[in-house]
């Protein structure tokens, strides 16, 4: 099962890297005479209203569909792990202050803030990604912090303190490896949340200019073609679902193996 999940994600990653190069057609080339038609030998997934090859557009869009969520996941994970560890280990007023700020951020309706922010500022995914990382971080900080609190009371952590080790060493060398299973699993969940949210934003027409090959945007643009070429909107939707599910399940499995493997 894990091999299947990794293969799915690896294929998606490969498409993101070399999708442009292997696309059978120019993703932007229009063929208005042809219009929207179903699958054929030339166009495996058919064409959209403007006669553009759906498969080529999916491949070309893989890069942006995956790159930004990965950026969000990496940013969120680094930020939340560092802050959560610090808050949990240090405790006291630093912890209280960070938790109140986190409460505030969690109380904000995230998607709405994104829509307003990106709608007003414009300028593509850049801001949306930054805002998303900021919005996702507080929840993850809480998770890391509560795990740190639990680990800090373990005898090995107290022994490290008793040995007079520096706080940074206790945090990163002793506590962090024991949080790793959760950190990795939550990084994959952040990736999934960002993937789906960004697709949602493009579906709403926010973020990217019309005509960009993007999975979310393709669902929106082609949803009128369900009778002529249903694959034009179903294929990108299916891709998002498959990649998101694979990442979620892989996170689950990684958590289990890593927990068994050493740290509990």
């Amino acid at each position, binding site marked *: 099962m894990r091999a299947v999940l990794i293969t799915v994600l690896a294929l998606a990653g490969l498409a993101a890297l070399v999708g442009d190069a292997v696309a059978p057609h120019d993703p932007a080339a229009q063929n208005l005479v042809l219009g929207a038609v179903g699958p054929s030998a030339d166009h495996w997934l058919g064409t959209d209203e403007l006669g553009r090859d759906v498969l080529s557009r999916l491949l070309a869009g893989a890069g942006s569909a995956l790159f930004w969520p990965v950026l969000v996941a990496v940013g969120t994970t680094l930020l939340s792990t560092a802050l959560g560890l610090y808050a949990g280990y240090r*405790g006291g007023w630093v912890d209280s202050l960070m938790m109140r700020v986190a409460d505030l951020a969690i109380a904000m309706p995230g998607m709405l803030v994104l829509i307003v922010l990106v709608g007003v500022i414009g300028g593509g995914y850049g801001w949306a990604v930054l805002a998303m990382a900021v919005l996702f971080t507080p929840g993850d900080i809480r998770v890391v912090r509560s795990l740190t609190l639990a680990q800090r009371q373990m005898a090995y952590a107290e022994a490290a*303190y008793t*040995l007079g080790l520096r706080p940074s060493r206790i945090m990163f060398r002793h506590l962090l490896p024991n949080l790793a299973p959760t950190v990795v699993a939550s990084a994959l969940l952040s990736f999934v949340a960002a993937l789906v949210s960004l697709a949602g934003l493009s579906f709403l027409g926010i973020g990217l200019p019309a005509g960009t090959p993007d999975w979310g945007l393709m669902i929106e643009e082609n949803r009128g073609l369900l009778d002529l070429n249903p694959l034009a909107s179903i294929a990108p939707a299916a891709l998002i679902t498959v990649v998101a599910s694979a990442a979620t399940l892989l996170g689950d499995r990684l958590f289990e193996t890593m927990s068994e493997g*050493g740290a509990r």
Partner: protein
Amino acid sequence: MTLLTVTGLTITGRHLLVDDVDLTVAAGETLGLVGESGSGKSLTARAVAGLLPKGLTATGSVLLGDGAGMQLIGARERVLRSVRGNRISLLMQDPFTMLNPLRTAGLHIAESLPKRPRGGTLREEVVRRLAEVGIDDPAVADRYPFQLSGGMRQRVAMAAALAGDPELLIADEPTTALDATTQHEILMLLRKLQEARGMGVVLITHDLRVAFELCDRVSVMYAGRIVERGPGAHVAKEPAHPYTSGLLAALPSVTRTLPVLTGIPGNVPPAAEVTEVCAFAARCGQATAECTKARPVLRELGAGRHTACLHEVRPRNDHAPEPAPAVQTSRPFFTAEPGEPLLRIEDLRKAYGTHVALGGVALEVRAGESVGVVGESGSGKTTLSRCVLGLVTPDGGRIELAGEDITPRGRRTRAARAHRLVQCVFQDPSTSLNPALTVGSTLAEAAAQGPAEGRLSVADLLDLVGLPAAYAVRKPRALSGGERQRVAIARALAVRPALLICDEPVASLDVSVQAHVLELLRGVSRDLGTSLLFITHDLAVVRQIAERMVVLFKGAVVESGETAGLLDRPRHDYTRRLVASVPPTP
């Protein structure tokens, strides 16, 4: 009348866990199932009640009742449900998780009562049941578990287990989580109830002293099988299997200080690896070629005695035990003039809200001396050690170590040199080592915290605690409990401290392993000159290791003095009660 007949019970999961176990329990009889962790005693009991964890299967026969009886192996869940609580009841170890925190004590009992109470209201019946387990205050019925002490909870749990008037009670380590004095009361209560009701009891315990004190017959389990059985008193006096004899030899005694504590070498093998040989042969001093040719059957010795050993067991005191190897190193350890005061604690106070953990404790440890701190849970003994380690900030008082004031002031602040003076061995071997680091990196890191001059290498440290150097590359999960505790001791010794605090270092270990670790700590004190502050609830353990001891009760020292004298002639009431609650060592 036979209540329960177990024949050929075999439990398999991914591997073989319990191998061909036979048991019988008669009405009015207490059967002790004794063994160390991993011997399969709890699984056996669970299989009898049809409560095996998912993934494990039992084969063989479990017959309930006299004559033809009722076959419980392979019985439908509906049948088992009608048996549980009404004919077989279980009493578990942990009184903290056994009761539902959202339901009152009375509800727990009421829901297991037979449908129609014999005369009187339900309430009266609940009060009567509480009185049966020695709770005379009817108000307890309306209390929630968190409002009750551990002993009270165990009594309520017992009343609930007995509410369905079962013929057979399976008690799985019912007193292990309780304090010594409470433990004694609960055991006496169990015996009283068993006699009054004429009930059969299966008592599962790792504590031989408890088994011999309470049980009519004892079955000793090892690596998933029964190696010896017989009347409790006989087995205690003349063990007929080297394993039993080894366990008895490893038992520390509260009445005398043993010159050498002898554990059993090696570890318990998995049941699956020893199916065709004597399971104990690899660790046995008397093993011959015969022992590994075929599996010895339980042979009868007469008078209900059976043993799975081919040989006559040598009497325990026949051969003088070899002295333990010296704990040696060429590197200098902290030295002070023996007898000089090393640790001086004055008027130490700490309160958590309204609960006073330490109410002005004074204590002195001299260089090279080992001092025991004895008390039950809530006595403040752990708070005391945590104050010295700088993990807890006391409200008042003064801690002086080697002439330096190391009293922690403020959150997690600590005198800069304190970590080179005092180190600690913690209780729980499963959390005391970082699971993500290898033994070698744990020890190397610790050694680097000590003075640079004469630093011990990882190999030196492992050698010091009697572990092979190859263990350096292992992760903690590949070690047994005793081995982990040795590594924890090596880590504490790595900085060559003047004082080693041991906070219940053997409380979670099996008896045979406990002896090894205690002997190692004695060596540390004797050969390295390190002072020990030994915290424990176990009087037999403190007798073996400490020259002087103090008794803590509710945050105050109630008695102190030389260990032997104090335990032989306790003066304070509380100390007397403590001493009286220790089951006699066979």
